[in-house]
């Protein structure tokens, strides 16, 4: 084999990380049609969607492992290797959470009380907005590299992360309202179902929390510059 110095260029982890967050986003977005089916009590369709969510989560896992294998020690990057790996771990947890939510709902054939339908839909889509916002910020890694992780581009990404925090705040407020609503309804419901409904509300909120943590990792990377 011909010998040249180009071996010093290691494969960039940026594209795979972007692909990973793409996969994460599409996994989380599957929850939207999933809950539509649940509300319509179309269990056949819901089960099908739950299977796609699981499948999608497994694919995200594979991507995660590939990224880790690609970043052994001795790789020199513009950002800390540990920060990058930690960020990928956080990204991956979003898909895990989506899988858990769908699995639990299917497992118990959970029914959502009619009055909560609209508020829950709004809450879910806001939580997924947070994931989308994290996705958008991660896709700035390309441009961050172009600008040497410095200057205007950093400010731009910091803005995106602030927006992500605002979205997460929204979801907190919405969750409080939903809990209040559930409290008013819970006397008419099966107590065990109520416990699991609270759980699901929490887990859906976790999607936004985890998305915020991805943003926080990204912010840390930029702060260490």
């Amino acid at each position, binding site marked *: 084999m011909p010998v040249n*110095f180009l071996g*010093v260029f290691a*494969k960039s982890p940026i594209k795979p990380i972007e692909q990973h967050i793409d996969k994460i986003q599409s996994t989380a977005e599957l929850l939207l049609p999933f809950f539509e089916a649940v509300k319509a009590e179309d269990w056949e369709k819901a089960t099908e969607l739950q299977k796609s969510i699981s499948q999608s989560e497994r694919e995200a896992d594979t991507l995660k492992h590939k990224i880790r294998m690609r970043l052994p020690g001795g790789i*020199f990057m513009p950002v800390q290797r540990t920060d990058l790996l930690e960020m990928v771990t956080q990204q991956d947890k979003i898909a895990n959470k989506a899988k858990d939510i769908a699995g639990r709902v299917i497992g118990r054939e959970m029914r959502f009380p009619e009055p909560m339908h609209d508020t829950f839909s709004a809450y879910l889509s806001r939580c997924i907005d947070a994931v989308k916002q994290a996705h958008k910020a991660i896709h700035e890694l390309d441009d961050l590299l172009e600008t040497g992780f*410095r200057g205007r581009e950093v400010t731009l990404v910091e803005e995106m992360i602030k927006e992500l925090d605002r979205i997460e705040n929204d979801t907190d407020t919405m969750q409080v309202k939903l809990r209040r609503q559930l409290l008013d309804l819970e006397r008419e419901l099966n107590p065990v179902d109520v416990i699991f409904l609270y759980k699901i509300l929490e887990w859906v909120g976790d999607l936004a929390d985890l998305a915020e943590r991805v943003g926080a990792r990204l912010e840390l990377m930029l702060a260490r510059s």
Partner: protein
Amino acid sequence: MVEVLVTNGPWLIMAAALFGFLMAFGIGANDVANAMGTSVGSGALTIKQAIIIAVVFEFAGAYLAGGEVTNTIRSGIIDSSFFIDQPELMVYGMVSALLAAGIWLIVASWLGWPVSTTHSIIGAIIGFAAVGVGSEAVEWGKVAGIVGSWIITPAISGFIAYLIFQTAQKLIFDTDKPLENAKRYVPFYMAFAAFVMALVTVTKGLKHLGLNFTLIESYALALAIAAAIGLVGKIAIGRLKFDPKADRMTQFGNVEKVFGILMIATACCMAFAHGSNDVANAIGPLAAVVTIVQAGGEIPEKAPLVWWILPLGAIGIVFGLAVLGKRVISTIGTKITHLTPSRGFAAELAAASTVVIASGTGLPISTTQTLVGAVLGVGMARGIAALNLGVVRNIVVSWVVTLPAGAALSILFFTLLRNMMS
């Protein structure tokens, strides 16, 4: 008159010329991938374009700016006064050195070690002189200078690369209108590349073509060439077609297109620099053999290079890259992800300037080493997605191993040759 040199002179010259040519061939075939790899890897040049540029500018660099380094290798490393009584030993030694360096390069390539041609030949020359004749025969002061330059030049080129990259960030990337600023400033970088190349050519290379300029004339000429190249660059950039629906995201894509034009200029510069410094590794020893044999055994302190030597080396390099270079370069392919032209240019321009200036002062430095330094410089400026420090370490180790390896082989061949001839 030394009997052996008179009877065997033509044969010795022919052997040295053959080995020198083969060495130049090897340099062309193998090292060209280092010199042109960044341009091809960042997608600024196709393989065919890279070969054409390499053919033209390697030849120009070797022929026009290769003389100083050739002289250093011919007569700067060993103290010729120790060979006055036995000039044939110097001839045998230089032939052995060529053979040793050539064989070491083949072995190293086979093992997959990225060794340096410069280090092999310097190690080989020191080897036969120190062991075959005596350690006093080596100009240790000059050797120390050369080896010191191997440590300093990568650092310098890394520093320059860091600065160039930072200026590009300040002037172009971190602004409101990166594309407009790229169009405005990139021609200046092209002019700078042309200026360095032209200045070394004019001050060092045109002498042996019989053209002599004063210092002021040289600078004026180099500036004029630089301005012309800058203007050509501006026109070329003006003819680029950009994605009209460019939002903030794709804007950098358009900016990189502008840098693609710049990389054509820096690739020329790199090929020129490589030719100017590395041709001496092949023909420096040959030049020594020819000088001594033609003087009938005397070792003149300063002698003009025989006219055919530089072209022989230049043609060897061009031959090597034309015949085998394509295969070598094509293995680079698209392996390098995320090496965009704006990074490649900073590394290439820094390395090329460092090498060309070193060539002008006669220092035989390693092109590859300088490039690695430059790439690390851009990496330090947070410009490259991921660098393999393990590979950098292997490269450094293989350089260190090359000196004793080249020396040992050349001692072996020297002893054999001396016994054969006596």
